[in-house]
């Protein structure tokens, strides 16, 4: 909601600046300058206000679920995920998931620490598909830990 309000304000501010460029009147120019100044700062406020909120895009590839919460009234599941190697910062996503399906598993359904991929289901909804995930073996192929490496001074 906050995101939408800021976005509408931003579109309005930029549109007024563009209009004032075409309407050559001294008073309008001042309005254009004020709106331009607003258009510079609004995206920054928008970014600060929306940091931490769920991303409406579904996560791509495999993700490990660190926590989840179903919306109180709508068919939306919020997931807190580890992107498995993309980087170390977890992300929050909102995924349209059928409430009946979620409830059938019981509200105490524990997705936590499960590796899943989000796949499209019926009627614009999505499904969480469990993956039997094996973490990469770092010792495979003759790789060794630093403490296992031969001492170069010897």
């Amino acid at each position, binding site marked *: 909601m906050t*995101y939408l309000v800021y*976005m509408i304000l*931003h*579109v309005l501010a*930029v*549109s007024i*600046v*563009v209009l*004032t*460029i*075409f309407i*050559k009147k001294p008073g309008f*120019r001042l309005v*254009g*300058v004020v709106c*331009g100044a607003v*258009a*510079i700062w*609004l*995206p*920054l406020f*928008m*970014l*600060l206000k*929306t*940091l*931490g*909120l*769920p*991303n*409406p*895009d579904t996560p791509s590839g495999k993700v490990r679920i*660190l*926590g*989840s*919460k179903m*919306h*109180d*009234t*709508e068919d939306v599941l*919020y997931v*807190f995920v*580890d992107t498995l190697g993309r*980087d*170390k*910062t*977890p*992300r*929050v*996503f*909102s995924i349209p998931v059928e409430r009946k399906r979620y409830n059938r598993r019981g509200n105490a359904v*524990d997705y*936590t620490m499960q590796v899943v991929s989000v796949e499209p289901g019926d009627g614009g909804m999505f499904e969480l598909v469990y993956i039997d995930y094996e973490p990469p073996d770092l010792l495979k192929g003759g790789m060794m830990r630093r403490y296992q490496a031969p001492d170069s001074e010897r």
Partner: protein
Amino acid sequence: MTELLTSIILMALQLATVCLLFAMLFLHATERWWLRAATLALGAGAIVLPILSVSAMLGHPDPWPSGGRYEVYGWDVNESDEAIYVFVAAEGDPVPRQFKLPFDLKVALRLQKARENRGGYHRIDIKIDPGKNRDRPEYEFIFVKAFEEE
């Protein structure tokens, strides 16, 4: 990290487009068709770029959490980044959000213990106080046990 970089680049481009629009505002020959086309293109860019920039950062943690009491739905401890990421929702707010909190070894160990014994807790709350230093908010986890100890 890629999203952060993309967002910074898009923000810089947005700033540049608005500055160019400012320049157009004081240009006196906007009757030329190519200047009009350029103005419209810059206007469209100034509208679209922030949308892309903010969208790229949606879902990332907020390092400056607002104060209050929240219910905790998940967490991730990252000692190398010296951060504890929490997935929380305020009372009455159906939409949860993610906060980044400063690392504390005692809290990290307590959270590890809680993860090993998830069924043992009725709920976990967190009380956050932004404090004087906005970069290091103060916080306290409140563990409500499912069963009272005898």
